[in-house]
């Protein structure tokens, strides 16, 4: 019972962090149809910036998170303008190569600037303890991660389903040419969505630093995981991504608890089985 609860909480927290990071990837892939392998690299940049702000500058945790998100977006904007715009509508191989190139660059630069060691983002006292449920205690950070995931999911749902910007996004996802013909300025929609997506990636990178430790190869290590979320959830689907993240979080965490000597074997096996069974994603939206 104890183990089941531990696995449950950890799986939920891990799934939610995955969600916060990869939902942006899902939306941009649904919108711009770019296979973006560099998404994890931006989450990693967020983690590094927050670590620098909180540890080296001694800023408050909340301020560090804000700085990380804003800073990562500031780095991403010129990258979108000068590199990504060149590959919208290009072949898949071209997109893969360009975004792998960006990933390699980010890894190399991160290694040069911050060194190869793990970086932590020190938690404030209010988040670092644990709550006692009587029969068992739970780390507050896990609950915080779960809460943050729920808030992000709700906020995105509200943005996309309830605002006029959301209507434009949905129109552009369904048919970009048609949306443009109706007067939606797709380039601006793309740029804003990209910024939001990168901001969320950075947020997830910071909040998840306890679960996905920040180090230079972060961007490669979790590249597949984020892509798998989109592939299983279906590009552009929030509910699909949420389901995919919870499923993958459960599989990965259970594997780590019950058969740690197998590493990620069962995780990748599950990925192959799920993607083979649902090549269009669980929600069938992926084209």
């Amino acid at each position, binding site marked *: 019972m104890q183990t089941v609860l531990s696995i449950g909480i950890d799986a939920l927290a891990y799934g939610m962090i995955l969600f916060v990071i990869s939902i942006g990837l899902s939306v941009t892939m649904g919108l711009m149809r770019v296979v973006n392998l560099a998404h994890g690299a931006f989450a990693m940049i967020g983690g590094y910036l927050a670590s620098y702000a909180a540890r080296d500058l001694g800023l408050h945790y909340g301020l560090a998170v804000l700085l990380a998100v804003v800073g990562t977006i500031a780095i991403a904007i010129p990258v979108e303008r000068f590199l990504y715009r060149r590959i919208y509508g290009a072949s898949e191989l071209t997109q893969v190569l360009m975004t792998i190139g960006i990933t390699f660059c980010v890894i190399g630069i991160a290694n040069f600037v911050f060194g190869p060691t793990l970086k932590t983002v020190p938690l404030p006292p209010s988040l670092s303890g644990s709550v006692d449920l009587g029969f068992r205690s739970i780390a507050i950070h896990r609950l915080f991660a779960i809460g943050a995931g729920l808030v992000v999911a709700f906020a995105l749902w509200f943005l996309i389903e309830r605002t006029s910007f959301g209507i434009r996004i949905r129109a552009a996802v369904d048919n970009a040419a048609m949306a443009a013909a109706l007067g939606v300025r797709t380039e601006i929609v793309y740029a804003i969505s990209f910024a939001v997506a990168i901001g969320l990636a950075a947020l997830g990178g910071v909040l998840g630093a306890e679960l996905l430790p920040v180090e230079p190869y972060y961007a490669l290590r979790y590249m*597949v995981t984020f892509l798998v979320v989109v592939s299983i959830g279906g590009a552009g689907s929030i509910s699909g991504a949420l389901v995919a993240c919870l499923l993958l979080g459960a599989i990965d965490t259970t594997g780590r608890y019950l058969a740690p000597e197998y590493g990620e074997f069962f995780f990748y096996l599950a990925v192959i089985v799920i993607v083979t069974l649902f090549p269009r994603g669980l929600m069938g939206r992926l084209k």
Partner: protein
Amino acid sequence: MRTQDGSSRGLVQALADRGIFGILIIILVGIAGYYLLPNNLALLTRITATALLVLSIDLVTGYCGVATLGHAALFGAGAYGAGIASAHFGINEPISMTLIGAAAGALAGLISGFVILRAHGLAQLVLSIAVVHLAHEAANKASGWTGGSDGLSGIAPGAIFGVFEFDLWGRTAYVYGIVLLVLVFALLKILVRSPFGMLARGVREDSLRIAAMGASAHSVQMRMYVISGIVAGIGGALSAISTQVVGLDSLSFTLSAQSLVMLVLGGVGSLYGAIIGTVVFMFFEDTVSAANPFHWLTIVGALLILVVLFAPKGLYGSAIALSSRLTRRKSA
């Protein structure tokens, strides 16, 4: 043959089409390497083994249009196949080890193809990455057979034909590698010119059209994956024989991604491009990463971005385009 403007040019073209020049150049460069870089033969053999892997990726990506980031699984299968045959079963005859590597690669190609070719687009890419990670984790777990993260040691290849011992300087291994590369290159040159090679190019361009001609795109890609596995497996076996150790990095995502980069650098869809890309990339890597391995990754990344933006046909493809533009201008 194909160009009718002057018989000498026609002959040159015909020889180029048949890969005669390629074979001659590989042999000449091979001999030059032997005498010019006698202390670097280990590096040159590593380049040869990697060139086989990159050729193998070219078969599925360049000739069949399948984007894969998991091709090291086929290379690693060949390396472990040959290595395990020697370390655990005492099969130390190098040519048998190579054949076992080729068979292991073919089997890995069959399994990878079976998994990867079921999907398209993003799902296909994700499956290809998952396959190489799965193979990596499996090899890590089966440490009794593979040596796990310590690597597989105890590989002791005997003399080729009982005569040519594998020496400390890697001379025999180097010559053996060049011979293998020439043989594979010649056979692949025949393959890509054959009716099957033509069908594969058709699949790359429009698989629906191929179906309307009565052929199955899936079956073409499947057969190509197995052939590609044989080629990668030979490369893996060469790596196992020459270094006498097999590490988990031969099954890694990084190797998969880097060899795709080499292919793109040289030029996708051309056997020459695959080899040129490998040689340029690995020499560059050897020089730069000796200075600082982390700058190396930054440079690879930047290089990749530059190739995508300014030379999407790769070094070989761009050179061909440039030379044909120049000759056209001259004749005009």
